[in-house]
């Protein structure tokens, strides 16, 4: 695939920009141009908003048989994460042991390499999810330390 296909999605993959319906207030990620609830009334009115950084694992799996470009990552954890406001997103869970991932676990998005298209192809980047009790930047600390889970103490 050509690079432009991925370049088009940089705002979403790199900055996790979502869209919000000004009528009902529901937030969509990836962004939608039409609200699923308000439909035509929302056309041309959807607003770009940053996605909440606070998520929770809804369900997870350990992938053993992967697509091309992911073979060197197996086994890896894939999850559906629910963010504040009810937005749900698929992504890998990293920076922890696969056994430690559980439903309800708090996670936050982190910026990572997703896969490479062979030795000469494009390297794709985007978001993955890491345990929220393991902050990588100071802005995560206030809630990461206090509510991030059991015995985390906000360390790391």
């Amino acid at each position, binding site marked *: 695939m050509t690079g432009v296909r991925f370049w088009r*999605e940089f705002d979403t993959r790199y900055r996790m920009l979502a869209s919000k319906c000004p009528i009902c207030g529901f937030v969509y990620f*990836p962004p939608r141009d039409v609200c699923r609830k308000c439909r035509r009334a929302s056309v041309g009115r959807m607003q770009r908003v940053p996605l909440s950084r606070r998520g929770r694992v*809804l*369900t*997870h*799996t*350990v*992938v*053993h*048989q*992967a*697509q*091309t470009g*992911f073979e060197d*990552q197996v086994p*890896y954890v*894939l*999850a*559906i994460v629910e963010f504040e406001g009810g937005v*749900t*997103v*698929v*992504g*890998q869970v990293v920076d922890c042991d696969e056994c430690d991932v559980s*439903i309800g676990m708090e996670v936050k998005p982190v910026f990572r390499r*997703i*896969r490479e298209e062979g030795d000469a192809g494009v390297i*794709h980047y*985007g978001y*993955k999810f890491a345990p929220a009790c393991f902050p990588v930047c100071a802005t995560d600390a206030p809630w990461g330390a206090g509510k991030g889970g059991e015995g985390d103490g906000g360390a790391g």
Partner: protein
Amino acid sequence: MRDVAIVGAGMTQFGELWERSLQDIGLESGMLALMDAGLETEDIDALFLGNMSAGRFISQEHIGALIADHSGLADRGVPATRVEAGGASGGLALRQGYLAVASGMHDVVMVGGAEKMTDVSDQEAEETTSMAADQEWEVFFGATLASLYALMARRHMHLHGTTPEQLAAVAVKNHAHGAANPKAQFRSKVTIADVLAATRVSEPLGVLDCAPLSDGGAAVVLTTVDRALELGKRPVVVRGSGQASDTLALHDRWDLTVQRATRLASERALKQAGMSLGDVDVAEVNDAFTIAEVIALEDLGLAKAGEGGRCAPEGRTALGGELPVNTSGGLKARGAPPGATGIAQVVELYDQLLGRARGRQVEGARVGLAHNLGGTGATATVHVLEVVR
């Protein structure tokens, strides 16, 4: 709308058919259906073909024309239409054929489904089946079709206490059924222990929780009920045809353990038929993964929400049970060529309703239901068939 009947059905062997091309498979299934109907090629007014991804599997698009050409339909200029909706391509083709006859546009329609998956590597074939999921927001991040069903399975287990053993029981049942189907890809029985010990694909699903990669074709001939009676056939009437859509991506569903398209397609088909699930004697439902059959049974209404896992272990869905499900072996054992699956389900029901499903006959079966699903549930079709005695 005219009443529409199936008057002939046929299918190829399902499996790894290395010596057969897509046109071979399409032609054989169509000819078997035509012979079964007692009709000639000249009688066919239109062809509808379910095919998911010939472009990826054999680098050939324009499949409608290809199959029409090799079937001897091109010289008469018979309209040929390829229909695609991932694993629901066959069910959708059947619906298009049904609408064509019901509307009065065509009198005799051939509906086929065919897929040739083994001309590419297993890795490429798996990637192609995953294209029925969302490329940009699921597959890009490392999801496969199996992993998305695994996410549903884990959520179902969390919410409802469904166990790996209950999922395994689906595979055990469908393999036992497939053992009695000479056209099935797998005719070997498996045990719960086999399923649980199989190589992991995406936890909690292992290889024996997943339908295989398959080559195969299936076809049925549709016409009006009046014409069927003229032909001296016992018509199997399409009483209801339902189709519904849902979000392409699993994560966009309001409930990860409900395939709403199944519910809606089923409600629509049964309403049209003037029937309820209680009237159904035999069903073919999507079991691309063991969890898929569990969820389908809940959405069809055979089990309450969350209790679908109990059906197979309790024998409710086995031959001789309350509602035998996937007597053909299902996608799991009969095989799962995506474009052909939806038609193969109807071929099985046709045989069941005519009382000719040797070795796996549901005695006295009068009404059958076929449930075909694409991807993680973004497209579903349900057809209700009844034999006229």
